[in-house]
């Protein structure tokens, strides 16, 4: 069960999420769409506690954390939840001081205390999966954006997370490089990965997602199958947004 319920979050008095609830179907891709500042990114970051919700419940598999006002979650709870999620960032955020393969090994070696040889073996298999095994010994700075993002995907997959969070995974890439990243994500989705993805990229949402939620001003306005949301939205705000995308 992967579910966010009643998530509230404000930044210095500005309410960014107004009690958002969202169930993420396992083995499928859920896309969050909406204008800039609608709270998509914040919602995503509440799922792995890069932001601590002011209120609500985050439930991922056997970890269920409730949030209320002042009480901060314990460090061990935060870690338990984070170790069930992986995150892919808009601007990749590879570790520049480590080679490609070391980036992918990092969670296994440092967090899960795997022996290096075993971690390297898994890292190489993952790099192969994203088509980056030839660049295993390269420094991140020498890679194109698309290549960096594919390595970042392998890094996020390394600890076998139950949920993969993608924060605008193609927005920093030009269309050609975005395509190679979309291909990798599509393969992942076919293989049954569970993903929650915030994106502006209509093509990405349409081709990968089985469920789309439209977020505006901190609320889910409408959600449903991609064909329904993009083809026949019912809410006026959704209609306006979808039209603005030129869909």
């Amino acid at each position, binding site marked *: 069960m992967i579910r966010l319920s009643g998530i509230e979050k404000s930044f210095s008095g500005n309410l960014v999420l107004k009690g958002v609830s969202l169930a993420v179907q396992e083995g499928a891709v859920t896309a969050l769409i909406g204008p800039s500042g609608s709270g998509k990114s914040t919602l995503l970051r509440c799922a*792995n506690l*890069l932001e601590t919700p002011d209120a609500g419940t985050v439930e991922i598999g056997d970890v269920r954390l409730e949030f209320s006002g002042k009480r901060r979650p314990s*460090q061990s709870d935060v*870690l338990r939840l*984070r*170790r069930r*999620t*992986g*995150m892919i*960032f808009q*601007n*990749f*955020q*590879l*570790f*520049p*001081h*480590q*080679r490609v393969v070391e980036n992918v090994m*990092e*969670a296994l070696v*440092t*967090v*899960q205390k795997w022996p290096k040889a075993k971690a390297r073996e898994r890292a190489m298999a993952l790099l192969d999966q994203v088509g980056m095994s030839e660049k295993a010994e390269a*420094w*991140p*700075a*020498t890679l194109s*954006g698309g290549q*960096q993002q594919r390595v970042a995907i392998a*890094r*996020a997959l*390394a*600890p076998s997370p139950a949920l993969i*969070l993608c924060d605008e995974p193609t927005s920093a890439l030009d269309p050609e490089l975005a395509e190679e990243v979309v291909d990798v994500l599509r393969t992942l989705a076919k293989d049954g990965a569970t993903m929650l993805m915030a994106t502006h990229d209509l093509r990405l949402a349409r081709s990968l997602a089985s469920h789309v939620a439209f977020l505006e001003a901190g609320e889910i306005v409408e959600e449903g199958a991609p064909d329904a949301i993009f083809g026949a939205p019912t809410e006026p705000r959704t209609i306006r947004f979808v039209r603005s995308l030129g869909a």
Partner: protein
Amino acid sequence: MSKEAVLPDWLQLMLTSFWPLLRAGLVFTVPLAILSFVLGLGVGLLTAVVRLFAPKPLAAVAGFYVWIIRGTPLLVQLFVIFYGLPSAGILIDAFPAALIGFTLNVGAYSSEVIRAALTSISRGQWEAAYSIGMTTRQALRRTILPQATRVAVPPLGNTFISLVKDTSLAAAITVPELFQQAQRIVAVTYEPLILYIEAALIYLIFSSILTTLQARLEVRFGRHGGFMERAR
């Protein structure tokens, strides 16, 4: 005519005093500089981390320490430790007194460099480390510090070279290092110009060697070819 006879007196003096000066440098100046730099870096790292991550009262104590050390002359600090503390019943030999003084000094200055280097690493790197399940300590050790080190090496190299020269202040608290050795020879020979220039030359040799080492260290830490932001 023998060859020695044509050597001018000043050169003769320089040659005979070269080894005593160099030896004082190797026995006192260099160990004092290296020891207090290494210990000072430890103090500096601790101070920087405390100021950035510790609870406010503790961070304030660290800030107070940096304020005192940076706001008062090093020579005065050395005098307080060596000549002042005995009045409070604390007697410290000249070399350890100098070591304490220089360590505290390096600690304060390097803490500012390290703090700046740590804060220069983007928030996204912390988040990437957290996102793969690291604790704050793991993120600091594995992700942030190695990158901050690269940023901090050039300014810390400057701190070290300044330190090597500042060790001459230890002469004032009776440490028989390079400069004090020069003063002693001057007291016998009455040749201040020649001896002090020679001492200056030896300091110049030391700091030139260190500058070369620093450049190599920068290459070593820069081997990953720059940060992603720069490459894009």
